[in-house]
């Protein structure tokens, strides 16, 4: 235990404390932390990143919800293979996922080829907000699907039958029976998905457009502007947000696995 504690204190807690101090040591002093919320550029980037992450989280939960419940309910040949394929990209780094988006929607991608065939126009969106969303959904699905499947396993089909026999339509069954039962899993998976999206960096880095997600802003502040203090302050606030989201997820499910995106 002792070696872990020493390593951890020296290489994580101490640097983190240092980060806080550096954040307050720039031109702005401690008001750098205030600038995160008052300076339009930083605030805008935070709002954009949060909006992106929330949107991606909702979309992913819908997709994973439908797919996860389906895979858990039905036994058929190839089911194991489908599940394996859906969880395979779990450890792909963000840069590779950015490249996957370029493959799908980039200048020479598949989606533009298809739209070209149908509408006679090449629809290239890899380098826009839509492309970024696509990449984030790409790495979020493998992170949420197993949680949803585990929760769907515990669903009691008798409850749905009871609801149906009482005259509930398919929509009502989903809204009043299935969703409430899956709610804890959705919250936990959603929090993981949100935190990963907030901190994801590689995807935005590869797609390299005018999209200013917070990790990109931190990177440019640090490398191009050499504004270490501001980068530190931004990192600290961002870290606080993701940590809080994951702590929330852990309090619900007792375990969380979130690898970098």
């Amino acid at each position: 235990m002792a070696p872990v504690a020493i390593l951890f204190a020296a290489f994580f807690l101490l640097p983190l404390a240092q980060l806080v101090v550096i954040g307050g040591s720039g031109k702005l002093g401690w008001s750098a932390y205030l600038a995160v919320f008052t300076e339009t550029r930083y605030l805008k980037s935070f709002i954009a990143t949060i909006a992106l992450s929330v949107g991606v989280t909702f979309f992913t939960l819908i997709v994973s919800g439908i797919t996860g419940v389906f895979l858990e309910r039905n036994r058929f040949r190839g089911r194991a293979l489908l599940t394996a394929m859906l969880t395979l990209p779990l450890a792909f780094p963000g840069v590779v996922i950015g490249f996957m988006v370029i493959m799908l929607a980039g200048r020479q991608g598949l989606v533009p080829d298809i739209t070209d065939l149908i509408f006679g126009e090449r629809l290239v969106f890899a380098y826009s907000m839509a492309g970024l969303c696509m990449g984030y959904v790409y790495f979020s699905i493998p992170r949420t699907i197993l949680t949803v499947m585990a929760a769907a396993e515990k669903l009691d089909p008798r409850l749905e039958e009871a609801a149906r026999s009482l005259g509930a339509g398919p929509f009502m069954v989903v809204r009043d029976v299935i969703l409430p039962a899956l709610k804890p899993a959705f919250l936990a998976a959603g929090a993981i998905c949100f935190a990963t999206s907030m901190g994801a960096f590689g995807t935005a880095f590869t797609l390299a457009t005018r999209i200013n997600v917070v990790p990109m802003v931190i990177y440019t502040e640090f490398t191009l502007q050499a504004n270490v203090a501001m980068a530190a302050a931004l990192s600290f606030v961002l870290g606080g947000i993701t940590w809080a989201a994951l702590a929330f997820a852990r309090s619900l499910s007792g375990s969380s696995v979130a690898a970098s995106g």
Partner: protein
Amino acid sequence: MQLAFTLTVCAFLIVPVLMSMTAGVTLNYMTGVSGGITTQWVEKVLTDYRGPILLSLQLAIACLACTLLLGIPAAYVLAKRQNAFTRAIEELLVMPVAVPGIATALALIVTYGSSGSFRTSWLFILVGHVLFTLPFMVRSVLAVMSSIDLKTLEEGARSLGANFTQRFFGIILPNCSSGIIAGSLMVVTLSLGEFNMTLLLHTPLTQTLPVGLADTYASLRLEVGSAYTLVFFVIIVPLLIAMQWASNAISQRKRT
């Protein structure tokens, strides 16, 4: 309906993987596979990016060694003493995963960036990777440790005269081998693919595989980027499949 949807989602995840794999071996991506198949891009990648690929493998193995040495004893202590203090430690250990890699990297740089030889050595990246992967090893081993009855096993061994070393290597390690294997696969995979932290931690001389990938995507032709991605997939996909297989084996054992 639902099947169609599931298949679409699957296609969304898998089709680009297959596309980039084929693009890596085609002569010219615009003309497609019919234009001819070549290994020239893969060969180019293997010669030009030999250093980063080897460094990534070296990092992954060193990272695995560190997490095994640090993680298993830590998990053992956490499993044996369950109190508020060890729970707080557990919570702290997960923090490097919760905090974005770019923030951790920045924290390391502002603290140790000025100590020249350490900053420029590959050990600097190793520190980051160990911080990030350690929680996965600890959790994986801890999950198995808390599912077996450590206390009874150890008391049995002790009553037969086994000392601590014998108990640790003869009883505890073999009993949580499945957790150790699952954790090890996770650590190696994550270390090989780590980018968020490594981008800031690396120096031109300590470029890793994913950093090299970003480099080719940004500056070289699509075929080279694809070929490099292909090389990466060839390394990482077997590991991911092994990981799924290991976690299935664990959950099946728990059920029986």
